[in-house]
């Protein structure tokens, strides 16, 4: 059975705070500002909002954000688990709520002091943020404590089985950096980098080095969704949810699915992709641009395969062809991605996916972009969404 979700909800507003390394503000202040920016962008008032979605990892209670913003009654609120795996999961919840009439206008937000506050790179050594301490207890005594270390374990295997080399990883890092250089909101705005910088950067967890890893950032991003009917009367052209799916694969663990027959793969994303394509009636050939969750360079490769832009194991070749570049087959992470703009757990990526569809991405100014893919974090239960222009 294919879910009936196509064209049931539209993204009508997007917004972000400044991205920084030290916001000097509360998480709640960032969340409220991002939500307000998204509502302003849509031409909506806080009183129009009746639904809210965020990450289980977010520190900001829906009711606190609602009071800060000055919303009235909320009839829908929900949270999505598994870190960055929740990014498009928020769209998934919002679209279902709108499609069923549980809410009319839903704000999805994510705000964090990810650099000046709790840094995920510091690992699960202290207080666990989420998930069970028992689960991480299978890894912490051995020193396998950080997101980079878990991803490195998968990627070592991927490199062993495919032609993926450091050239491929550099190309992903470099492509995002060249986009960020033009994006005033990006951490690496006007700061290009070279192969030498990449090669000489410190090793984090073999085979990942510093520039294979995303920015740790302070900031917030939000998007507003409503019905396509309501969207027609608002300030911005609406961006339709064509398909949206989540999946936790067989034998999934949170970041450590090391017990499957093969670990150089993300079967949960394969399934989410298949579902989203079926819902939307689209194929990979219809997708003009993408925002692919890039907490690390390596994870972009696996997702390109899951979404059918190349064959299994051939993502390296695809990337080296220049496919991710401004005039390539699939301009990707055109804001600079989380590698070079900021790490707002993928929600800044949804903002960029909307800008791409609207034709306002700073790096794709004149392109006619009809359909954009945006994905969630991987290694965890994950998902993705296909966005399209409203007629």
């Amino acid at each position: 059975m294919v879910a009936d979700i196509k064209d049931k909800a539209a993204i009508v507003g997007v917004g972000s705070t400044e991205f920084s390394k030290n916001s000097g503000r509360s998480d709640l202040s960032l969340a409220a500002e991002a939500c307000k920016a998204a509502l302003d962008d849509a031409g909506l008032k806080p009183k129009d909002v009746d639904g809210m979605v965020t990450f289980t990892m977010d520190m900001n209670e829906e009711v606190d954000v609602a009071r800060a913003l000055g919303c009235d009654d909320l009839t829908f609120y929900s949270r999505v688990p598994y870190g960055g795996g929740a990014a498009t999961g928020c769209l998934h919840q919002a679209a279902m709520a709108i499609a069923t009439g549980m809410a009319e206008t839903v704000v999805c937000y994510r705000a964090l002091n990810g650099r000046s506050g709790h840094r995920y790179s510091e690992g699960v050594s202290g207080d666990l943020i989420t998930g069970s301490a028992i689960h991480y207890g299978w890894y912490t005594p051995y020193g396998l404590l950080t997101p980079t270390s878990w991803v490195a374990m998968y990627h070592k295997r991927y490199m062993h089985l495919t032609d993926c080399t450091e050239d491929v990883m550099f190309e992903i890092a470099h492509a995002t950096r060249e986009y960020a250089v033009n994006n005033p909101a990006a951490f690496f705005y006007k700061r290009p980098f070279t192969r030498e910088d990449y090669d000489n950067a410190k090793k984090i967890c073999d085979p990942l080095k510093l520039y294979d890893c995303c920015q740790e950032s302070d900031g917030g991003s939000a998007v507003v969704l409503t019905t396509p009917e309501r969207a027609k009367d608002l300030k911005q052209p609406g961006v339709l949810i064509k398909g949206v799916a989540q999946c936790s694969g067989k034998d999934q663990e949170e970041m450590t699915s090391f017990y499957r027959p093969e670990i150089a793969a993300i079967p949960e994303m394969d399934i989410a992709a298949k579902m989203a394509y079926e819902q939307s009636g689209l194929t990979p050939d219809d997708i003009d641009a993408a925002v692919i969750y890039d907490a690390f360079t390596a994870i972009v490769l696996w997702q390109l395969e899951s979404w059918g832009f190349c064959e299994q194991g051939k993502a390296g070749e695809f990337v080296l062809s220049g496919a991710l570049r401004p005039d390539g087959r699939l301009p990707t992470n055109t804001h600079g991605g989380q590698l070079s703009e900021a790490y707002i757990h993928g929600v800044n990526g949804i903002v960029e996916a909307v800008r791409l569809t609207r034709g306002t991405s700073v790096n794709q100014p004149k392109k006619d972009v009809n359909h954009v893919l945006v994905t969630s974090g991987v290694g965890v239960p994950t998902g993705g969404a296909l966005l399209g222009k409203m007629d």
Partner: protein
Amino acid sequence: MTPEERKAFEDKVHAYVGREVNAPQKGKDDVNKAMIRHWAEVMGDENPAYTDEEYAAKSSKGGIIAPPSMLQIWSMEGYPMAHNPSQDVQRELHNVFDEHGFAGVLGTNTSAEYYRDLRPGDEVHAHTVIDKISEQKATQRGIGYFIETVTNFTDQNDEAVGKIIFRVLKFTPNDSNDATGGDDSDDGMPEAPTRIASPRGHDNKWWWDAVDEGKVLIQRCKSCQTLRHPPRPMCGECQSIEWDSIESTLDGEVFSFTELHYPKFPGYQYPLVCAVISLGEGTRIISNIVGCEPEDVYIGMKVKGKVEQVDEKTMLPQFYPAD
């Protein structure tokens, strides 16, 4: 601080950039054999160029020299530092930071250049200037500013003999600070950190208890005999909740691995390699590869495990190259 207050504060501290800490000063002691010998003695430095006159005279040095790393020592203030340090411009600047909540201070970097060897009888004059103050930075220690001073050293002929750049962090300490916050046990010695242990609950305690006794067990369904790891309460194949376990021989093969470079956590010994290991019994386990260089580990490598005590509190399976 409001943005306005922060700006006023930053303007105030930046006004110190370029100011001299104090007027050029001659060191209290000229370079001398006694202080050289005292220093070399504590440092355990047996270099004969510092202390053996006969050797030094015959060597290319042509006589006793001071260890270059003593350069700054000749101009130190000495005992007044303990009780009544001079109130120079640098202390005044630090006080401004203190008043604004940046009370922590930490030397982070020094960079020294030595233009010539110093010899007994040389005078050393020091002239220190506040050279740079960074933007506000978020550091592991807390939020703060880096202050850089430059000291130029000259001799009795006003010729340059060296230069030292010194960088300190003035910061607001984090509450949740790292190991250097230090536990204070009775004898005043910090406890050596150990590896982060797994909490033990209903479904995993038996497994870790067995490790403490030197055994690695694999959970087995009593109904269909399927092995499973990590342990969980129900068999995914037949849904039985009855189980027992077998002991692994710890014969395995590396399925994937990573060498952990950064960050380094207290209590772990680096270099450190973690691996996914396929055990002969058919399940996998995550562990460390030890007993060889990290660069010698490869996917497909045969390994053999044993349970070992890795620190004061931790027993763990560790895997060695099989041959």
